């Protein structure tokens, strides 16, 4: 029993990381129908900046968090201004390529500022891991799960209960109609990038004490987070979170019960199966997918 539980906890730990990245994808997607492949870099920037403010500059814990999130948000803003807004005709391929190019540049800058070493800082609460029926779970993992849940709730409230959120969703479905309705589409796009960057930063800040952070963690996080978002249904916040946990647990169970070398393949195969048979994902809806621009 404790062995199974341990595998489960491991899966939750890994899954929480993917879940948070997937959430970030959905914000920009909800506002623009763009998939931002530089999302992974926001996570890395958040983690590294947190180290910079709290360990290198030795600023107080909460101040460091605020600064790290704010700075990352600014980078999101810059990205949108410099590379997204200038493009008039936003076709799918171009957007994919531009976000990939931005991720390359961001990685290069991170490499210069932080070098190639991994960085770490203390978890939010110090203390022994928690023992449940013989299986151990780190306290920081509980923090990550808790923060993820909080973020889902906040995102749900934002996109469904506030005017701003609903306006953003309208822009993704039909920007022209949104404009006619009086929504400032450009501003919505910009806000979505800032929010997504900040969400990425929160993910990075929360997971670094568990997994460490280095300059080139971005692409792998982006791919797995993207898979989580697709699995759960693009555009559905809680879907991507569930997707993230499913991928994490699947990887862990495969490593535990089948073969640890093949676990990456398993998650990918499951994702492909979902794509082929239910592309809208677990929570998505086919009609809504067809209505989207991409």
């Amino acid at each position, binding site marked *: 029993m404790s062995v199974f539980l341990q595998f489960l906890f491991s899966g939750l730990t890994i899954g929480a990381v993917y879940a948070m990245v997937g959430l970030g994808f959905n914000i920009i997607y909800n506002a623009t129908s763009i998939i931002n492949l530089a999302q992974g870099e926001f996570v890395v920037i958040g983690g590294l900046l947190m180290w910079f403010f709290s360990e290198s500059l030795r600023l107080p814990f909460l101040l460091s968090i605020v600064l790290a999130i704010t700075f990352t948000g600014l980078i999101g803003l810059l990205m949108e201004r410099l*590379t997204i807004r200038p*493009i008039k005709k936003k076709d*799918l391929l*171009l957007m994919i390529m531009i976000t990939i190019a931005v991720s*390359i540049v961001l990685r*290069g800058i991170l490499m210069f500022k932080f070098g190639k070493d991994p960085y770490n800082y203390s978890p939010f609460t110090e203390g022994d891991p928690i023992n449940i029926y013989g299986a151990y779970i780190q306290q920081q993992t509980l923090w990550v799960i808790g923060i993820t849940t909080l973020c889902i709730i906040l995102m749900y409230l934002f996109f469904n209960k506030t005017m701003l959120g609903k306006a953003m969703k309208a822009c993704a479905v039909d920007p022209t109609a949104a404009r006619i309705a009086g929504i400032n589409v450009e501003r919505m796009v910009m806000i979505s990038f800032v929010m997504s960057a900040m969400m990425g930063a929160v993910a990075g800040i929360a997971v670094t004490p568990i997994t460490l952070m280095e300059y080139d963690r971005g692409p792998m996080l982006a791919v797995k987070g993207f898979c989580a978002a697709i699995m759960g249904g693009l555009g559905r916040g809680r879907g991507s979170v569930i997707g993230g946990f499913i991928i994490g647990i699947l990887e862990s169970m495969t490593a535990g019960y089948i073969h640890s070398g093949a676990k990456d393949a398993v998650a*990918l195969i499951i*994702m*492909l199966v979902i794509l082929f048979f239910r592309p809208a994902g677990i929570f998505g809806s086919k009609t809504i997918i067809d209505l989207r621009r991409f």
Partner: protein
Amino acid sequence: MRITNKRIFLVASLIVLIFPFIFDSAYTLSIATFAGINCLSAMGLCILMGYAGQVSLGQAGFYGIGAYVSAILSLNYGFPVVFSTLIGCVVSALAAVLLAIPALRLKGHYLAVATLGFGEIIHVVLNEWGPGGPSGFGDIPKFYLFGYVFNTPLSYYFLIWAVVMTLMAFSLNLINSRFGRALRSMHDSETASSAMGVDVPSLKIKAFVLSAVYAATAGAFYAHYVTYISPSSFSLFQSVLVLMMVVVGGITNLWGAVVGAIMITLLPEALREFKEYDILVYGLILILSLLFFNKGLVPIILERLQKGHRA
């Protein structure tokens, strides 16, 4: 003078023939050879994306299959290299069918992710079960034909570019044939072309198979040139690289794929001066060309030339 594909082809062939006599160092010839190998991958992707309109982030998977199958058959089972290359193409084609059938209904991001997933699965398989695992293997036989072994820089250069030009001629004909026109109409609107009697599903599968075969050919030639391969050359990064070649050069134009491939191959060499800053410059050049030449270099150049001519 009107710019036709035939004229461009003649000029290109001339350049290919003269090039090694002007730049005759082994170093430049290697760069040119790698550029040729990349051209093959890029051309395949261009047909799939530019003409058939299907996004693919998994080109490296087919590239890897071609390389590994050809290398293993020729090294471990003594197959003549030409045959092992062909079988590599066949295996790659089968994989493409396997991917294309379920992927038929997918579009946009979903198709992109499916192809990405496919490429990654191939990478994991090669890493886990390929000979030598992550470390790869070597001693792969060089390419030979009727007893002649291509082991000088010059001979391999001509071999590769002969293959490139031949496939280019084939592709150009294909694009202008019924098949090509059907592809393009499918790109513009699947519903409309279906209504006109085009068998859209079978066409999509054929497009995937075609791009896979081109990539597999590139992979095989790569393996028999470097004679040492490992899974790290066939990862997502490689898929993205090929994607860049096509997008920067001009996705709707086969010559664009060639120009893009040459440029992306040359770029790291040209950036050697910048030492470690090269990755930054690389990314910036990419962003700038995507922002300002977003149709791709070749279409823009062609447009300018046509306009100038008309005036």
